[in-house]
């Protein structure tokens, strides 16, 4: 691995340079690029790439000056996955949220919402609640908490969650997903009604949505049916490796729409968009991806408020920039391994007290516990 690394690095760098050349060549040809993506998407409905919405691909927007009072709401979730190896099967979704008012000498307000899942709540029409289902339930709960909090505010709101807005769940056709996804969209609609600058913050992104767009740009018209299919022209090149050279400290990229099978389920005001933001210093760029719904992407004031707020929040953590509010909501929400065992013990005691005979712990788990590994 070590021996191959330098050669791989050189190869990737060459791919990246070629991708940058395509980016520069298509910088102002956005209209024709859009049409090319539409054609490719018609040929390949499973296409996943960025779709340009601004006039220039290489736009770099400096930090806006936003001085009006506002409120930051951040929510993060933590979960315990049910385990058949335990004596009692249960799950937990714990969502922590924090409300901060920047520049205001008010104590930030923390809230926590815990949902214990057991018996029927672990069963869906399609069978046992899966880990993916529980993760989506957590994502839904985060957005619902944010919507509830945002609805109480009178000041402009920035509503943050960690990770992409585009949920990952397979298969998307089962009822478990459909029900939860409906709630997910419902919470976003509520945030939209509040006019909140809602965003998903993706730290150290590895996505290549813009790179995939450039691959389509580089394809001759007659080969568009090959869009999104292997072999990929710029495989391994990430979006941040391109934008690192374009974005100065505090600058954001152009806004792009996300084109994917999942993203198609977000319609109208909820359509998923993203931009890259350099939250690093002048001499040490650090790029993150920020996913926003259409109502934010298309509203300059909301976009500016989000841009400015994220930079200010990141600055609070100095050389390792990350939004303070998101870190704090994580601290409020996190369920540690020890806490899981405490909770399991409490549930077991309560079951036994009520005369319930517990099933045996799996021998595998028992051996793990005995050796403490």
């Amino acid at each position, binding site marked *: 691995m070590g021996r191959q690394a330098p050669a791989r690095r050189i190869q990737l760098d060459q791919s990246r340079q070629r991708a940058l050349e395509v980016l520069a060549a298509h910088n102002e040809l956005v209209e024709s690029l859009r049409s090319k993506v539409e054609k490719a998407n018609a040929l390949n409905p499973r296409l996943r790439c960025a779709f340009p919405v601004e006039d220039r691909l290489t736009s770099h927007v400096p930090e806006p000056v936003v001085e009006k009072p506002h409120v930051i709401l951040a929510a993060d979730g933590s979960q315990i996955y049910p385990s058949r190896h335990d004596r009692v099967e249960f799950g937990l979704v714990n969502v922590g949220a924090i409300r901060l008012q920047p520049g205001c000498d008010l104590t930030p307000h923390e809230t926590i919402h815990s949902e214990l899942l057991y018996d029927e709540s672990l069963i869906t029409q399609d069978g046992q609640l899966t880990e993916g289902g529980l993760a989506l339930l957590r994502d839904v709960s985060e957005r619902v908490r944010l919507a509830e909090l945002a609805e109480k505010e009178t000041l402009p709101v920035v509503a943050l969650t960690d990770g992409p807005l585009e949920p990952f769940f397979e298969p998307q056709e089962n009822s478990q997903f459909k029900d939860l996804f409906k709630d997910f969209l419902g919470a976003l609609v509520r945030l939209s009604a509040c006019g909140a600058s809602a965003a998903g913050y993706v730290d150290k992104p590895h996505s290549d949505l813009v790179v995939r767009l450039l691959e389509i740009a580089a394809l001759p018209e007659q080969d568009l049916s090959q869009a999104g299919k292997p072999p990929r022209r710029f495989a391994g090149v990430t979006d941040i490796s391109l934008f690192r050279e374009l974005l100065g400290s505090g600058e954001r990229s152009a806004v792009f729409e996300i084109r994917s099978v999942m993203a198609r389920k977000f319609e109208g005001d909820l359509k998923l968009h993203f931009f890259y933001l350099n939250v690093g210093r002048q001499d040490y760029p650090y790029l993150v991806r920020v996913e926003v719904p259409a109502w934010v992407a298309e509203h300059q004031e909301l976009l500016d408020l989000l841009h400015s707020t994220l930079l200010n929040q990141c600055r609070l953590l100095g050389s*390792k920039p990350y939004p303070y509010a998101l870190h704090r909501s994580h601290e409020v929400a996190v369920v540690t391994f020890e806490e899981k065992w405490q909770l399991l013990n409490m549930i077991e005691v309560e079951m036994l007290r009520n005369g319930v005979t517990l099933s045996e712990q799996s021998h595998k788990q028992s051996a793990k516990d005995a050796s403490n590994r």
Partner: protein
Amino acid sequence: MMGHLLRSDTAGCVFGCRVAEVDAPVFGGMVRIPIEAEIPYQIYGLIYDISIEDDGLVRQLVTAGQVTPEVVRDNRENRTVPLEVGVLFIGYKRQGEIYHLLPPRPPLSLDEIYSCSDQEVCEFAGGERFGYFRHILRRMDIPVGELLAVHLQQASLAHAGDVGWGARAAKELIVLLRDDYSTLMSVMSALGDTGLRFDGAAGGAL
């Protein structure tokens, strides 16, 4: 209430409280810890150490250099990083009697700690009894001179109606430390910095 007990042993305890508690602990302050028992009693102690623990986030915030008012409040009032307060036991009260002895058993986790009122300080340290000084003087790991000086300063204020209390306490310290010149000098030097006066018939007046 000042805080809740974190850990304890026969001679002292450490309690924790939020940084922004209204009844904030002060160095040398006298505290009491009510103990539930068959015959309830109350332990008295002196605060000899106050430490503020940090964690990774606080360190990161400090190095960032940009600390906003809401972040200060968040860390002081919301985050579970307590102020740790060291207390050495100096006696206890049971069935109305004050004993300058170590308590029968130390307090338990999460027992409540209260600051003593002037009346309680006078009740514990009043009169001619200074036996509790030995609990302070035998500790080699704390700033004995500073602690005694601050205690005498605070207790003298509490003994507003007994202007001779400070002088009697100082005299007792001189007797107890007559064979320990270096500690005596350290205590006297610290007492000198308190502004207390022990001269004249009305010795002990501030």
